[in-house]
């Protein structure tokens, strides 16, 4: 049965659990408590909830002030606005002032498929990862979202998280006992022929592609690079050295995101053939996530084809 629980709901459930034992856990929303799935939190812990209205600069500034006073605020606001409208507050009030603010970009990437470029956030990783002192995280599914929420609540420092709007197919089993470690990639599948590196909702595609590749005798390693910053450079260098070719998959512009981050590492340490899959430099086409992903080659079938070509290039 397909999963029906979106990551935002998984996050709310975890925050409700955390707030039971800590009155310093706070949630802020910019008229977004519904779309962030945080209405249950607002109802259960009204004294730990702050509504700012539609004011994304303000929500980040207020969160920084709360964090300065010992709170652990989770700012839940659409990724498209949070990562652009408030970027200076993120840079100055969170990263530069070193406040313990958790910025949760909801409905990220192309979640708001048909609403157009104003509502897409496919530059957020590029922008946030260039800011010193800010961690950047994209959980792959609801199970990882829960573990990540706990991990970043414990972590002292600013974090930008991007999650999507719709339920995503599970990547992990319910009882998977692997810990979520900020900055440490998860090797979901072993393989020596090439490596697929993905983050967020594209991790599932990478896994499916690896399964298809197995049928044609290609063993693909799959890395879930849930933390784009601090980046697990060791895992990337090992992938380059041990498998000799890399494909990156991301729900983000091909400029400045996961692929670029991987290229920055491989080109300087261990250059190997690399293909960056993502949204090209254009306003993304309208459609449901799966349709848009397929349009831009973010599908198991296309990744399989690319992988076959890449491994043959590598062989020469």
């Amino acid at each position: 049965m397909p999963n029906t629980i979106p990551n935002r709901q998984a996050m709310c459930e975890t925050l409700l659990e955390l707030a039971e034992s800590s009155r310093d856990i706070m949630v802020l929303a910019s008229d977004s408590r519904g779309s962030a799935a945080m209405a249950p939190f607002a109802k259960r812990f009204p004294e730990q909830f702050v509504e700012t209205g539609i004011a994304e600069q303000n929500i980040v500034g207020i969160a920084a002030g709360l964090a300065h006073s010992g709170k652990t605020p989770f700012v839940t606001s659409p990724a498209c606005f949070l990562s652009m409208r408030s970027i200076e507050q993120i840079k100055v009030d969170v990263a530069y002032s070193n406040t313990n603010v958790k910025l949760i970009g909801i409905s990220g990437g192309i979640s708001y498929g048909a609403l157009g470029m104003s509502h897409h956030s496919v530059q957020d990783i590029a922008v946030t990862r260039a800011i010193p002192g800010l961690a950047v995280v994209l959980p792959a599914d609801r199970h990882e979202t829960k573990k990540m929420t706990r991990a970043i609540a414990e972590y002292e420092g600013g974090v930008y998280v991007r999650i999507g709007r719709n339920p995503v197919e599970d990547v992990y089993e319910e009882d998977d006992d692997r810990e979520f470690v900020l900055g440490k990639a998860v090797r979901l599948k072993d393989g020596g022929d090439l490596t697929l590196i993905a983050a967020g909702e594209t991790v599932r595609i990478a896994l499916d592609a690896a399964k298809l590749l197995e049928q044609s005798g290609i063993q693909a390693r799959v890395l879930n690079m849930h933390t784009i910053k601090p980046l697990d450079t060791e895992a990337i260098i090992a992938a380059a050295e041990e498998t000799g070719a890399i494909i990156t998959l991301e729900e983000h512009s091909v400029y400045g995101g996961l692929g670029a981050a991987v290229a920055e590492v491989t080109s300087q340490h261990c250059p190997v053939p690399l293909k960056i899959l993502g949204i090209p430099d254009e306003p993304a086409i309208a459609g449901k996530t799966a349709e848009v992903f397929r349009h831009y080659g973010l599908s198991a079938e296309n990744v399989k084809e690319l992988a076959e070509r890449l491994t043959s290039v590598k062989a020469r």
Partner: protein
Amino acid sequence: MASILELKRKSLQIRKELMTMIHAAKGGHTGGSLSNTDILTALYYEVMKHDPNRPKLPERDRFVASKGHCVESLWCILADLGYFPKEELSTFSQFGTRLIGHPNNKVPGVEMNTGALGHGLAVSVGMALAAKRDGNPYRVYCLMGDGEQAEGSVWEAAMAGAHYKLDNLVGIIDRNRLQISGSTEDVMALEPLDRKWEAFGWHVVTVDGHDYGELLKAFSSVPEAAGKPTLLLANTVKGKGVSFAENKPEWHHHVPNDEQLKQAHEEIDAELAALADEQERSGAHA
């Protein structure tokens, strides 16, 4: 409690030091630092609860310099109070210093890094809201520039401050009527500024920002309206206390040359001497 004469003397010393510091660094925001020196002196030497030996004291009042370019007066005051050694003032704006041209929380006594305008009030709302939710008695003071009032984010925060009934929050506007390009009313008209803040739900008090009697009275009556944040509209003179810099927009970040520094010091010394006479006379009458 410091007397008004003592506060005046202190502010003259601070003005002298900041002129020296800007002259040595060959850079700084002269005009705006001089216009808010009296406001900061009132806050740090009389109004705010704080302890230079315990900068992180939980119950301290918070000061946020939203107008981050007032930093020259702030550095001189923090050094004078012992937050860091006074000799360090000579490193202002020098290679590798922590005493940079905007507040920097690597320096004890600084709460938040500022410099980008229109940020401080939202941060102050967060601090004041945390105090309310936790039942802490501290107050939050946020100094803004008047040119800064053109930033839309100021008004987002103003709305939130009133919405959450933050009567532990005091916004202060250094209303010197000049910004880098000229008169605030020519650059982007602000008036009627008091009525704008009132319309946003704040209790507005207009004072002469160089008159310690008015400043202390206004600060001590906070919150005059329960459930409302206070906005202190402090009318000031940009470049106050240095005749050739007063009311001159170009002195926003003009640097005094050797001659000008000498003249500024002479003018301030004359005021200090007059103050000493006044103090002596009032002492004799006592």
